[in-house]
């Protein structure tokens, strides 16, 4: 099973379509990072775009490595991988490096990375294994076990860092996947009631535990004008940046909002704005379409997977990427509060990019081996 399972047939089945979408979006991202970080007074171009390009190449290598072995090894070692992920999260809390008010990085010699990023994939692998091992729908005890093991435990650990955005994405992905498995009617009913009742009650409790910057983001979202220099200013400028692109945009490297730092996180979370400013509605729609094709491809991979594990895995990974995309877009378009969530493949950031490439690698892997091969 561990022997190299690449034969011509697999290469023929390789999902070039998915890879092309991925590369197109990433390269657009690198270009936009270049534009966003242009200097104004001095002439030195920060090397963010180069770093991102290097990470893209590393991601590509990781993607190919992910594709080589049949993904069934992921199923076999799913719990081990998941346990490793949990240990990494604990390590971050204990010995992690603090940066930007949060403790998210682990240092491994010269490289530092954010375990919560890689953990996203390990979690989905874990849930997929658990769900695919259960016959029929999810009953009470398996639900409770999976909820505490795959839902609440990682959520609490990530919230501690604190990394609210990722925490919420993962919890939502968890619920999305268990519903895909089909849960007992009673549990479903409980879930619905819970969703309707808890937020108002828990909201108050959560509010008190939120960090100041998180509170500010919510206040700013509700009343953007109240805080023109802070987060509200950021949301307002984000909308101005996108809107000023109009139909055709200002043109590549002609945008003014990014280099002038109206947007504090112009090359990370708000990279889409810079693109929209320069390429206008035409470009913005094309980007949205590229993402849509990518997500649909992911869902179709889930549909065609040869086994149940592959189905949950493909669906989970696609849904996670989709959530990141939607939350980021909702945020930059002024439809959601500012949660620090990057847009997949475009935002500047090494760990996130490489992790997302691995996720796409798994999707390609599942699709490539969708037809059971008999020897």
């Amino acid at each position, binding site marked *: 099973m561990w022997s190299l399972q690449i034969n011509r047939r697999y290469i023929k089945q390789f999902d070039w379509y998915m890879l092309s979408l991925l590369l197109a979006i990433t390269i657009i991202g690198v270009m936009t990072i270049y534009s966003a970080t242009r200097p*104004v*007074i*001095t*002439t*030195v171009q920060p090397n963010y775009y180069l770093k991102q390009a290097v990470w893209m190449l590393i991601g590509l290598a990781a993607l190919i490595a992910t594709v080589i072995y049949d993904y069934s090894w992921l199923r076999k070692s799913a719990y081990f991988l998941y346990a490793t992920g949990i240990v990494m999260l604990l390590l971050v809390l204990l010995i992690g490096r603090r940066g930007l008010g949060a403790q998210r990085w682990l240092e491994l010699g010269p490289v530092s990375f954010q375990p919560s990023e890689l953990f996203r994939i390990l979690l989905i692998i874990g849930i997929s294994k658990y769900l695919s091992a259960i016959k*029929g*729908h999810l009953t009470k005890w398996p639900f409770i076990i999976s909820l505490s093991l795959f839902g609440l435990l990682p959520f609490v650990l990530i919230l501690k860092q604190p990394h609210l955005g990722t925490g919420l994405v993962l919890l939502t992905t968890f619920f999305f996947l268990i*519903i*895909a*498995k*089909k849960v007992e009617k009673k549990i479903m009913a409980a879930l619905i009631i819970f969703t309707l009742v808890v937020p108002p009650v828990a909201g108050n409790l959560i509010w008190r535990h939120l960090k100041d910057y998180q509170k500010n983001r919510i206040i700013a979202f509700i009343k953007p004008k109240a805080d023109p*220099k802070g987060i509200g200013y950021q949301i307002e400028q984000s*909308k*101005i*940046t*996108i*809107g*000023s*692109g*109009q*139909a055709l945009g200002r043109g590549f490297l002609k945008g*003014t*909002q990014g280099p*002038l*730092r*109206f947007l504090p996180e112009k090359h990370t979370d708000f990279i889409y704005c810079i693109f*929209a*400013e320069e390429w*206008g*509605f035409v470009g*913005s*729609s094309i980007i*949205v379409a590229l*993402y*849509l094709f990518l*997500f*649909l491809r992911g*869902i179709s991979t*889930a*549909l065609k997977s040869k086994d149940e594990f592959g*189905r949950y895995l493909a*669906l989970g990974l696609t*849904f996670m990427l*989709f959530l990141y995309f*939607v939350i980021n*877009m*909702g945020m930059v*378009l002024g*439809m959601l509060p500012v949660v620090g969530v990057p847009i997949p493949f475009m935002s500047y950031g090494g760990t996130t990019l490489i992790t997302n490439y691995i996720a796409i690698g798994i999707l390609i892997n599942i699709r490539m081996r969708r037809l059971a091969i008999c020897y």
Partner: protein
Amino acid sequence: MSKEYFDRYLSVTVFVVMLMMLILAMRIYQLQILHGRHYREAANSNKIRVIALPAARGIIYDRNNVPLVKNEPYYYASFMSETTNTIDTAGLSALLDIDRMRLIAKLKKAQSERFKSIVLKEGLSFKDVARIEARLSDFPGLMIEPNLTRHYVFDSVGSHVIGYIGRLTARQMLSSDYDNITPETLVGQWAAEAFFEKKLRGSTGERIIEIDALGRELNLIGQTEPQMGNDITLSIDIGLQETAEKAFHGKNGALVVVDTRNGEVLALVSVPTFDPNDFVLGIETEKWNALNKDKNNPLINRALQSTYPPGSIFKPVVAAAALQEGIITEGSSTVCRGSLEFGEYSFGCWKSHAAVDFHRAIVESCDVFFYEAGKKLGIERIEKYARLFGLGKTTGVGLRHGIDEKDGSLPSTRWKQKKKWFLGETLSASIGQGYVSVTPIQAAQMTAIIANEGIVMPLTLIKGGNSGKKFDRLDIRPETFNAIKSAMYGVVNEAGGTASAAKSGIAHISGKTGTAQVIAGRTKTEEQKERYRDHAWFIAYAPSEKPEIAVAVILEHGGHGGSAAAPIAKEVIEAYLKGRDGK
């Protein structure tokens, strides 16, 4: 199996995904198409200015921590706006006292730069600043911005070492070394200012502000602080430098003082000097022309860029070669009858020395002795030893950028490739004439090597620049150096020595005189016209017993080294010794 359920679930998912994408697309449509114009206007009315915060250059200190330069603020008027059409150009040109057509051209350029300012007038006096400040509101977009300039505290003293800064040249603008700076930044253009540019230059900060229609600051959007450059401490002693420059009494020449214990250059003189302060904000055309046309070439660093025949100061090198190679011994002697007949040519000596031994041949600078030694040595071995003493190649002391240190020249049969090498040329070379030429700094390094009995130290202009380095030692016997040093002591301190004018009451000085022929022939120099007169050389080290400094002096058209150059060296050495004991 729940495959059907799962497939149905996927259908719902696809529906939800597409619905969400549609909502996003609609929102984008709303922002970019429906409200696009509004947001475009909002973006354009983001009145943003980016103001450069000039970074201070590092200070250049002398070895005693005396600052040689000061950073001083100056102001310039600049312009930034998208509404230049409405500007009263007549009024503005009167206010700034600049030509109206030039002003209009500059304003046009300002239109293409949305956030950066365009410099209209530089070097404003405080009076100008006050006058313009009062009328800023009449000319929206007009600003007064600060920048930093350099003041060279000692004016022309040491100008050939310290150098000057100035505006970016066209070549520098294209070079990646000057990437991270604003066009207004003044950068090192010459000597130390240019050579240590990377260290001295800070990094410009920027301040991004939102302004109102009158250009008043509303909001600070972002700021990066400027970073000051690093200071450097030169090995130069500015007091000694000044003494040395004055010792030339207005005559042209060069002088280099090297600390023989560490290779640090204590003074590097090239006279005449110039005032680097004239260069900083752009030199006036008349001054520039005057400097360039000046026959005395003040813009040449003679210590590094001028080569002269070494004359008799070359004799210690030939002596080292001859002693080391066993051509002569300390006991060798010859009879000088005022000339050496060689074939149909006669090679003259400056006087008839009668019987001279090695010691007297150096003390009294007998040419005939060295003709004979040189004849036996051959040009190849002379060249080899000259190279060991650092001649024929740059010292690498630095100060590139506008100052190309010269190699000097050492003849060899190889060097004079095509033509036949005449033995007579070897004879000329053995007394430092003919094709041999050296720079004053090479002469100083050579002297230091003799004083150090063969230890070769790279020269440095930075205090402590050689600390921790290991130095090579020439493979020459100590007895050889003893003989040469004893003779050089005699040159100054014994009866009949050619440099008795350098004899000092404070400490013993050892040295060697030299005369660099400007034209061939041996007319008595005092009768010659000034510009045909020979250059006077003197190399020296002191104290003789335990050398601390080595000095090389050349006085252009000074005549004999002993009478003209030796007193300058003496004055500098005494100033050094007094300064040392004074502290």
